[in-house]
């Protein structure tokens, strides 16, 4: 009976959302020109008059060559990155805070824990291969967040990959225990650094999270102003944070 009602309600919900679909653009027909993202793509937000834009006068974005040139308001080739870390950097600060909050939460909820025993020896191959793989994995993670403004990826996946390396360590080595002080300090300092970037922006450009570094050539490694720096802090922070979370859940309460 319970299932029947559940199916009924779930079906009703699906039907309702299906009805709602009629109100949004069909799949694949999204008109970027109507949306703010057109100007994120064209990197010409500063040259648009917002009052006119909101009143329905959709100015056509310029279509000059972006890649490999300099002087744009935002310097990263990956537009998603430029939105995440520049145009909507505040969201990303929030996002970092979410992870931080959940790390703090996990710590508080699982407070006072010690390491858990699987009761089995990790096999030899795993241990050896971990030793070889670990530097590579960490390097890969770092690569991902350093090149976040050029290629897909960024701080979050990069940090996660670093955390994955830590998890691997846990799995392979019975005795391994993350140095919480180091990870916490890294986490805290990197988080503070992000806010401090924002505050420097406030001091330098009059706006919180203002991009206070020159943008450089779109497409090159040292470009996009603070974006790579922010992504690096995010990457390190997420890495240490998620490692911490994994470590916390991994360990067991005393007694």
């Amino acid at each position, binding site marked *: 009976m319970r299932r029947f009602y559940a199916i009924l309600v779930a079906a009703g919900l699906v039907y309702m959302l299906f*009805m*709602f679909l*009629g*109100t*949004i*653009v069909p799949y694949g027909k*999204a008109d970027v020109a*109507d*949306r*703010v993202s057109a*100007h*994120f793509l064209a990197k010409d*937000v*500063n040259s*648009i008059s*917002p*009052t006119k*834009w*909101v009143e329905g006068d959709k100015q056509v974005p310029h279509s000059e060559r972006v890649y490999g040139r300099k002087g744009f308001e935002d310097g990263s080739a990956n537009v998603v990155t430029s939105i995440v870390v*520049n*145009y*909507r*950097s*505040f*969201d990303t*600060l*929030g*996002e970092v*805070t*979410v992870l*931080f*909050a*959940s790390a*703090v*939460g996990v710590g*508080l*909820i699982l*407070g006072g824990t010690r390491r858990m025993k699987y009761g089995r020896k990790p096999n030899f191959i795993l241990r050896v291969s971990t030793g070889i793989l670990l530097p590579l994995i960490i390097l890969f993670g770092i690569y991902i967040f350093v090149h976040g403004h050029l290629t897909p990826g960024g701080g979050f996946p990069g940090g996660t990959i670093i955390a994955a390396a830590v998890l691997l360590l846990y799995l392979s080595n019975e005795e391994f225990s993350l140095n919480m002080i180091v990870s*916490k*300090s890294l*986490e*805290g*300092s*990197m*988080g*503070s650094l*992000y*806010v*401090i970037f*924002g*505050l420097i*922006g*406030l001091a330098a*450009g*009059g*706006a*919180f*999270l*203002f*991009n206070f570094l020159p943008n450089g050539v779109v497409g090159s490694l040292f470009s996009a102003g603070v974006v790579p720096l922010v992504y690096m802090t995010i990457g390190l922070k997420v890495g240490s944070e998620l490692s911490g979370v994994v470590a916390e859940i991994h360990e067991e309460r005393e007694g």
Partner: protein
Amino acid sequence: MISLLIAIPLLLAFVSVMWKRLAKPLFFLAAVTNMTVLLASWFPNSVEIHVMGSWKPPFGINLVFDNASFYAALVVNFFFFLVSLMPNLVESYGVSLMLLMAAANGFVLTGDLFNSFVFMEIMTITAVTVASRRENFYNAFKYLILGGIAGSIYLLATIFAYTATGSLNMAHVSMATISASSLVAITTLYAIGLGVEAKLFPLNGWVSGVYGGNDLAPVILGTSVSFAALYMVGRLFGTVFHGSGAGVLYTLALITIIIGEVAALRQQNLLKAFAYSSVAQAGVVVAMISKGTSRAMGLAYFHLTNDAVAKFVIFLVAGFLVYNYKNLNGVFKKHKVLGASFSMATFSLVGFPLFAGFQSKLRIIMELFSMKDYLFPAVMLLATLIEVGYVVRWNVKLWFEEETDEKADNPIVAGTLALILSLLLVAVFIKPEIFLGGAMKMGNALADTKDYIHGVLSVVKGGM
């Protein structure tokens, strides 16, 4: 300046995770800083925005600082400040509270739909953390699940708004022409998404467990966070959607009032009883907001402020009692000051004269009559009647029943705060302008969509 309200607690939270011992003083510091920042920019009386990364709206994210968000932020930070004065309540939750504070401030100040979603999620996660105190895990988990669902629905609503208008900026969304059917989708989803934090029936199942589970959660979630959530209800349904979807809110809110009071009546746990009462009061506020006029909204927030102050006292005292005594009969004979403040706060809740609740309740009823709404006052008076029942029952129980031998030390700081706040309630009765002026300004700001749009979108470069 305004971004500091979010940046400072956030920064201090990041710092304090490195030095755990500093968390409590830093929390206090953050609260003091925020209060200072707010007091320095007393009622802007215009719509100021602070653009993030200097990307002007509607492209970037902007914080909106007008009378409404100022007042909301003031109330929110005020309670955080009060909590920060009580270190034994904060314990090891300093970092979480700082994050909650940053998130609540962000939620109140932001002018961007998606950004508000992010802050709502931070609020949910930190609130769950706070709620899990004193091993209240299952209830916290329930809250998490409900919060997760609500978050998803809120996100969906945001996306619908984005596809309909091409922007996430609240001011832009409010001025864009949205087709009727699209508007229905958006407001329905928002009503449900906000309903969880705004404690609307039947999305409020978490309230009793979370508020009743420990002594810190109700004190901060029942005051600051619920104020922030209800502020967002006013912002979205008053400013952004010009009252469409108000009918849904109105109906749900009326049911909420009755359900909340009825559930409170049978409750044997002191904290939970008043948790339900907080549900009912949220219902009153939402129903009032759904009326849509600036006066109605102003009164709604006036009522909410009174309720929040009263609830702070009640939950503070109740939390102390519940976790220090096994048998609550006649405990106030040992804690006269706590008892007096508790009684005053509960009487204010009911709306007895001499206390602030009277001012707001009667004003609300009067306003409703002048709008020719005869149902809501009747519901409200019926709810008040039930409220009288359990408020008197609890007061009589706590004051007059035979006491036991248990004894706990008087909490000096909490007692002083409770007494000051309950005297504040009396002061508000005598001089309602203390809260009413701000609340009315808030109502005006929320109802004045034009001003909001103008303020947000015509400013090319925002100030600090």
